[in-house]
């Protein structure tokens, strides 16, 4: 039996990788993948806790998250496509229209 | 049901108006005008069915709206609300008819006005504090756009100023409303009135002030009045009319309906300085109006002065003054509304408001001149026209509270003659000085149709005031009774000789 802490450590490592990728990488695709990584890190801890507590609600939440993530991926990729179309660049630092 | 119909019909017709394509502005104008006219006819039904001697609310309808918290769609009117609603419905078709010259975004303009009408009437008829607040804010939004989109020169500044001033007050009022709910677990006005002891402790003063400040900004009372000249000057004609004639009355109506009956002790305690502010406003508004170079600003400042009379009457705590105050609200609606309508007609011709731009207009426009003189006289309170009755009753009532109030307020009768006649003289009399004015056309049939009902109303209200007081007396008496007479005005009645009582 693998103790739950291992899952949690793996989840934390994945999450931190995601955060680091989000902050460091400039390519939009990579940033986007980092977000997915964070989501899945959270999913992992959800499942682990759910298994530990014998509460299947957690699994249901995970499915929700996955569905939303898929939808988000579809919308996000479409945005990225358009962005590339308009700016000929995938560098996040080139997009600063939200600036004051 | 009739009341609900009258109040909601304008909003519904605004929605209906949306279905007319924008390419047919004339159809939109006619439909909008027709809707306002139908609402007016229906509101006459209210007057017809109104029980004159009953003090309570009539045409009441009470539907649950939101369960938690307990908010009701609760409407009902007494004699005071009745006249204010009629004032609204009477002036709305006139204001729309005066807006035939609007050519940009006609549909939006007419829709907003109809929405405004619903909002304002809702304010006068709400018997649920939350609903009152909703209508209060609903009426704010259309006016904001009317000033901001169709206004003149500095319209955006004026619109934002108007919005922020009013918003600042209504935020306070919202807090007070929530506080009242916490104390009494109801938003219903009759229920709150029946259980005044639930919030009669030390917090009463704060609650009173929160409501009062919201209303005082709307009135507007000195020194919270500076939004008014800007808003009036920049608003389109119909906007100025509705703003002056009806929206300002929302403030004084709020004082009569909520400030006095809900918080009588606090009202009595704060009355002296409120009256002082009202008196300052009366004199100050008149003096500043005297030196305005702009006709619309002059009329706006005169509103500050006239509404000072209303506040004075409300806070004199007696029946005569209260009657006078309510009557003065209606008078001001008619007189100042009429003035703005007429000034708007001048603007349509020359696109200027500066007095110096004009001079000797009586030569090219004799009919317009005589109309203007008539409305001017009604505004300065000439007997047999409407302004006199309200002003005089307020003075009588105020003199019974304290004679010095009437002395100070009475000076406004001199000053109003000075500023209005001086303006009239500079704009209309003498030789024509500006070649641009030499060939101005006199009033068209449409413009006469706009002005004549207002003038007729001014005369009727001056001669046959009994018709107007009759449905109102019971309601004002009830407000005065609910409020009671605070200690500091009780002993002011002068000595009476024997045989002097009727």
């Amino acid at each position: 039996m693998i103790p739950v802490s291992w899952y949690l450590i793996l989840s934390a490592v994945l999450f931190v990788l995601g955060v680091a990728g989000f902050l460091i990488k400039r390519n939009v695709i990579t940033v986007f993948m980092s977000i997915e990584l964070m989501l899945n890190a959270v999913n992992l801890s959800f499942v682990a806790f759910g298994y530990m507590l014998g509460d299947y609600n957690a699994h249901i939440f995970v499915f929700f998250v996955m569905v939303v993530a898929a939808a988000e991926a579809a919308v996000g990729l479409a945005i990225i496509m358009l962005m590339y179309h308009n700016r000929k660049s995938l560098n996040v630092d080139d997009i600063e229209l939200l600036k004051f | 049901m009739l009341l609900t119909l009258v109040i909601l019909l304008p909003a519904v017709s605004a929605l209906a108006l949306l279905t007319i394509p924008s390419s047919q502005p004339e159809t939109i104008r006619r439909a909008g005008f027709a809707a306002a006219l139908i609402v007016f006819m229906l509101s006459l039904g209210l007057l017809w069915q109104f029980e004159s001697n009953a003090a309570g609310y009539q045409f009441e309808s009470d539907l649950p709206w939101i369960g938690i918290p307990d908010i009701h769609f609760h409407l009902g009117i007494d004699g005071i609300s009745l006249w204010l609603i009629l004032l609204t419905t009477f002036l709305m078709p006139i204001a729309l008819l005066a807006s035939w010259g609007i050519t940009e975004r006609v549909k939006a303009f007419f829709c907003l006005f109809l929405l405004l009408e619903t909002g304002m009437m809702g304010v006068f008829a709400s018997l649920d504090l939350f609903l009152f607040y909703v209508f209060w804010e609903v009426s704010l939004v259309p006016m904001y756009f009317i000033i901001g989109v169709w206004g003149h020169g500095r319209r955006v500044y004026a619109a934002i100023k108007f919005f922020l001033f009013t918003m600042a007050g209504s935020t306070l009022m919202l807090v007070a409303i929530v506080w009242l709910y916490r104390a009494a677990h109801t938003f219903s006005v009759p229920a709150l009135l029946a259980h005044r002891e639930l919030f009669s402790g030390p917090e009463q003063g704060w609650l009173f002030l929160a409501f009062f400040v919201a209303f005082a900004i709307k009135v507007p009372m000195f020194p919270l009045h500076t939004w008014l000249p800007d808003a009036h000057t920049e608003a389109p004609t119909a906007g100025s009319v509705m703003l002056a004639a009806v929206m300002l009355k929302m403030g004084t109506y709020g004082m009569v309906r909520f400030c006095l009956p809900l918080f009588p002790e606090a009202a009595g305690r704060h009355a002296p300085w409120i009256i002082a502010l009202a008196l300052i406003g009366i004199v100050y508004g008149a003096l500043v109006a005297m030196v305005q170079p702009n006709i619309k600003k002059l009329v706006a400042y005169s509103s500050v002065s006239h509404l000072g009379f209303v506040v004075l009457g409300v806070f004199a705590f007696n029946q005569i003054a209260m009657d006078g105050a309510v009557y003065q609200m209606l008078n001001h609606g008619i007189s100042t509304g009429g003035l703005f309508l007429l000034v708007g007609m001048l603007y349509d011709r020359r696109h200027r408001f500066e007095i110096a731009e004009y001079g000797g207009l009586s030569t090219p426009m004799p009919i317009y001149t005589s109309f203007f003189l008539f409305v001017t006289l009604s505004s300065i309170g000439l007997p047999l026209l409407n302004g006199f009755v309200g002003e005089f009753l307020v003075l009588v009532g105020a003199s019974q509270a304290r004679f010095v109030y009437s002395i100070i307020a009475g000076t406004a009768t001199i000053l109003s003659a000075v500023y209005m006649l001086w303006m009239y003289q500079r704009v209309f009399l003498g030789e024509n000085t500006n070649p641009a004015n030499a060939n101005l056309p006199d009033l068209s049939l449409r413009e006469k149709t706009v002005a004549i009902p207002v003038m007729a109303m001014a005369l009727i209200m001056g001669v046959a005031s009994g018709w107007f007081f009759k449905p109102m007396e019971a309601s004002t008496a009830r407000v005065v009774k609910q409020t009671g007479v605070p200690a500091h005005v009780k002993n002011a009645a002068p000595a009476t000789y024997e045989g002097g009582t009727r």
Partner: protein
Amino acid sequence: METTTPQLWILPALPLLGAAINGFFGKRQSRAFIGGVACSTVGLAFLYAVYLFFTAGVGDTPRIDYIAPWISAGSFHADFSLYLDPLSMLMTLVVTGVGFLIHVYATEYMAHEDGFYRFFCYLNLFMFFMLTLVLAGNYLLLFVGWEGVGLCSYLLIGFYYLKQSAIIAGKKAFVVNRIGDFGFTLAMLLIIGTAGSLDYGTVFKAFQNAPVENGVGAVTIICLLLMMGACGKSAQVPLYVWLPDAMEGPTPVSALIHAATMVTAGVYMVARSSHLFVKSPVAMEVVAVIGCITCIFAATIGLVQTDIKRVLAYSTVSQLGYMFLGCGVGAFSAGVFHLMTHAFFKALLFLGAGSVITAMHHEQEMGAMGGLRKKIPTTFMTMLLACLAISGIPPFAGFFSKDEILWSAWHNGHPWLWLGGSITAGMTAFYMFRLLFLTFFGEPRSDHAQHAHESPSTMTVPLICLAVLSVIGGWIGVPKALGGSAHFEHFLEPSLARVPVEFSAYARASGSDPIDIPRPNPEPAEPEEPGAERLFSLIAVVIGASGIGLAYYAYVVKPETGQKLSAQFHGAYRVLLNKYYVDELYEVLFLKSTTAVSREVLWHAVDETVIDGAANGVGSTARAMGGFARLMQSGFIRSYAAWVLFGAVGALFYMILQWAK
């Protein structure tokens, strides 16, 4: 007593009808039609008034015609109700009678003016308001007429609306009247507070029960405020300034409104309120003193004016002062008597002046006239009679009324006021005959004067009618001492209050009277000193005659005397010519300072700087704070992410800390 109530509403309704017809339809009608409507409505009103006089049994009890409710709020009620008693009967007769003659005159005088229909519409409207004023059954309705005649006066002074001086004069008249009306309004408020009503019946009854007031109390304040209103309307010091300027209006207007009727409304109101005034010795004293000051003051200005209408204007102010003097010394009926005779001869003087002005092609300066006696003989003759009347020469109308006022002043213990009034009588005779001699005697001093022609009969017939009235009008009030029977006083008796006995006791005790003369009880109707009264009449006649003689000497015998005198007393002459600089003083004191303070302090400083500054200050503070906070908004997604990270770490750290506790 009759049982039917007179239909009083017909009286004001007739001219109102005329005004409505001319106002709405007059523009397209012929002048004959307009003039016909205007004159016939007023004429009918006059006939109806005469009919009422003979049939309505005007006597001890007033007839009240209740028309409709007007205002009813709380405990306050005021109705449209008309009130007929001897006083209002008399006023109605004078107003409609003199008014009718002036209307007829005006159809000719104004025949060639633009806005003919407008003129008669206003004139009829004026008659409506004036009749409302005199017939009103309560103070509030009186106030309706009061303000209404003020409005018509405003409109008619500014009738030549292209002329700057005319429109400014109109506005001045209205505003100054409003100052008086302010006092009147306050008086009404106090009356309501004291008597609980504004109905004459209730008010008089309430005040009849009040004690005579020693010093200044409620009644005195009410009376003084009423007097303030009267000062505005009847052009008394210090509110007289509008009347001379009002001469900018057409001459018939000056005759009707600014001489015969409207300006006497103040006197009427004081007489109407006699039941109040007799309760306050102080107020009576003030009324008398104001009247006396005004009559001397205006007469001195009248001495040197050169514009024919201005002389008459100051003369009007001065004669109004007499009326107040009469009322103030307790002789209300004498005041009203003078009001009536003055209406006749002053209307005649103005209409005569109008005739002169027409003949002179609208030249009003007397310097350009002269020698008109032979050119316009009817005008001359009628004006001569009027001048004799106003100068107090028996048996003309002015003699009896003026004599009675002066006698009452002496008799009721006011020798100084008598002296003032007598001096004024001399000056009046002087300046009136100065006017007459400058205009009609000597050689013509201009081309217009050379070629003057008499006015047509539509103008001269009213002159003749008024001249007859100026001659015989005084005979109805011949005092008993002079062999008459004082009909007039008896007729008015039911309307006017008597000065109570305590009154003169008070006056004696307070020492207001420096000369100790026997002061019998004024109550008895029988004159106790016919000899003394006759003596005073003689003095008055001598004074008047010497004024005329002086004028004859200075302007006919030695025409250069006037110049010599004015050169010798140059300073005084300039002061008088410039009307004591009162207009200039008022302008600086009230107009300029008020507008300057309003503009610079109230509007620019308080409104725009302080209040708007505070409001804008709140706004800009909020903006500044926002401007600082928005620096966070860099636009870089990764910096936002970093903020989120910091925030999350911070939150975690906080939770751990909490947990550790």
